[in-house]
């Protein structure tokens, strides 16, 4: 006897996890604005040569330090004015987005691969392997990131590739810490033991059981690290050790505008705001992904 007349009455059709996520994403204002803004910046950066009003390197010494459209004497020829060499500022900011995004994305991918590998290996194998991993993480945490980055960049130069590599190999620790602990949790669960009992190889268990569980964490951290890499690149370029002129990078624009900031404050305000909003948007996107992917009942 399994119940009587109404045995099936109370069954509820629960939505699938994917549906739940989609529904949450559609309602998450922060996620929507963040993602929208990031996408817009990506499109503008990709199509910078077509959408920008002029050439980022074209100097015009007759039209130096022109005010933006809202200042006096501003005109639509240079909506955001010009810099000290008469280059169109809007164009330079648009092209600067390319540098920020490339470095942010490249560094996040490298640090994600390095950090997650280290973390998963440590969390999965435990014991001595894990002790070594913890030691590596501790060494990394003890090193002052900015100082190391500055030193390395001064030795290896500020090319795009060098910057991506240096930032990528500097900021892997958060990935390692988080993937390690998530892997430890997943490792202790029954389905992993079951897979092991059936004789699955380590690679197979990691790829099929562990990775799907850590992936959402990796994506969230990647967005965070992308924002951090973008900020650090700006710092390095601002300090004159990152991207070299005349290439437009937002940090470099701020550094170039610094000598004029007291009477032309928009020279530092505009690229700074661009940086600020891009980083906020990436953070909102990351926070949003976390909110959307956490299991029900666990708040932000």
């Amino acid at each position: 006897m399994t119940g009587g007349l109404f045995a099936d009455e109370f069954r509820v059709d629960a939505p699938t996890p994917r549906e739940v996520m989609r529904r949450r994403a559609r309602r998450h204002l922060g996620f929507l604005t963040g993602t929208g803004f990031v996408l817009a910046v990506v499109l503008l950066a990709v199509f910078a040569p077509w959408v920008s009003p002029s050439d980022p390197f074209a100097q015009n010494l007759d039209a130096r330090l022109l005010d933006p459209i809202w200042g006096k004497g501003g005109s639509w020829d240079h909506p955001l004015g010009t810099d000290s060499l008469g280059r169109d500022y809007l164009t330079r900011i648009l092209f600067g987005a390319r540098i920020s995004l490339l470095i942010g994305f490249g560094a996040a991918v490298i640090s994600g691969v390095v950090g997650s590998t280290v973390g998963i290996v440590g969390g999965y194998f435990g014991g001595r392997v894990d002790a070594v991993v913890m030691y590596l993480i501790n060494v990394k945490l003890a090193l002052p990131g900015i100082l190391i980055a500055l030193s390395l960049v001064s030795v290896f130069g500020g090319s795009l590739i060098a910057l991506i590599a240096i930032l990528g190999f500097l900021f892997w620790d958060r990935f390692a810490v988080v993937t390690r602990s998530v892997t430890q949790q997943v490792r202790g669960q029954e389905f992993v033991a079951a897979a092991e009992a059936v004789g699955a190889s380590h690679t197979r268990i990691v790829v099929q059981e562990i990775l799907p569980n850590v992936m959402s964490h990796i994506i969230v951290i990647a967005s965070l690290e992308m924002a951090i890499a973008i900020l650090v690149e700006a710092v390095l370029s601002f300090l004159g050790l990152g991207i070299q002129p005349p290439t437009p990078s937002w940090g470099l624009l701020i550094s170039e505008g610094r000598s004029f900031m007291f009477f032309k404050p928009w020279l530092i305000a505009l690229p700074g705001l661009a940086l600020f909003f891009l980083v906020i948007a990436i953070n909102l996107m990351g926070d949003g992904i976390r909110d959307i992917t956490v299991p029900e009942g666990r708040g932000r």
Partner: protein
Amino acid sequence: MIADSVLRVRDLSVEIALPSGTLHAVSNVDLEAMRGETLAIVGESGCGKTMTALAAMRLLPRRARLAAREISLSGTDLRALSDKAFSAIRGNRMSMIFQDPMTSLNPVYPIGDQLEEIHMRHRRAGRRRARERAEYLLDRVGIVNPRARLGQFPHQLSGGLRQRVMIAMALMCDPALIVADEPTTALDVTVQAQVLRLLKDLQAEFNMALILISHDLGVVARIADRIAVMYAGRVVETGSSGQIFGAPTHPYTRGLIDCIPYPGKTARRTRLGSIPGIVPSMIGDSRGCMFRNRCGWAEDRCRTDGNAERRIEEGHSYRCIHPVGHLQGAAS
């Protein structure tokens, strides 16, 4: 009798708004706890027994909404009190003992401090008086060398000792009512009986009302004077211990009793009863008898009017249109 009524709850409902709908955690519950009496609330986890107690103590989670026609303590209408006035009653005239003594004590303060603060708050007494009281009560709940224990931290005590500390805490201000929510569930089996015995003795000695919440009818049988059986947010049957065990009327009560093993009585190879099926979701519509999907006697009418209360005799009532047992057919 009215004079002896300590806690009276009439028509209590608790709803919790969830993303997937409204959860009817407690529906139209009536309860009365008398001075010098033990009232047991019995049901499986999630049936609303803890929510009922938290509602009476005004300790519900923030998202929960409460409605009741009456919640009164010794004649005082608790619903009318401000939060501030209510907190002067909690821990003072009514106190609560929680399920898990491992997590219910603050890990960073010595237990003496956690006992004394209750007395200092409600009695406006100095620390010396509070300390004397704490020491006396630790001794009363059977803790050896109470003075030394006062300076210890929770993690230095065993689970049984911690639950004794919780009981001492509840007694600090001589309450009229103690609500004990599964007080022995988290303890070792050997300790369970001692703690239960202790509760019963203290209840008689201090002449309090005790509400004992349990999922285990077998545990309750030993110390309860009255029993309320809850299922899916409702009290489905209530009566004295003798009435419930002597003449179980609701099919669910009957099922619960069949689940209790009796050492020496239950023959070796008898299969213990179990109730088939699962507890229904309490989200959304909650009309009709919620037990109907697991009930062998269910019929169409159960969907609509299975909830009306019927009375068998003074103090014994149930909600079912198909009472079981010797009374079958005799009910109105």
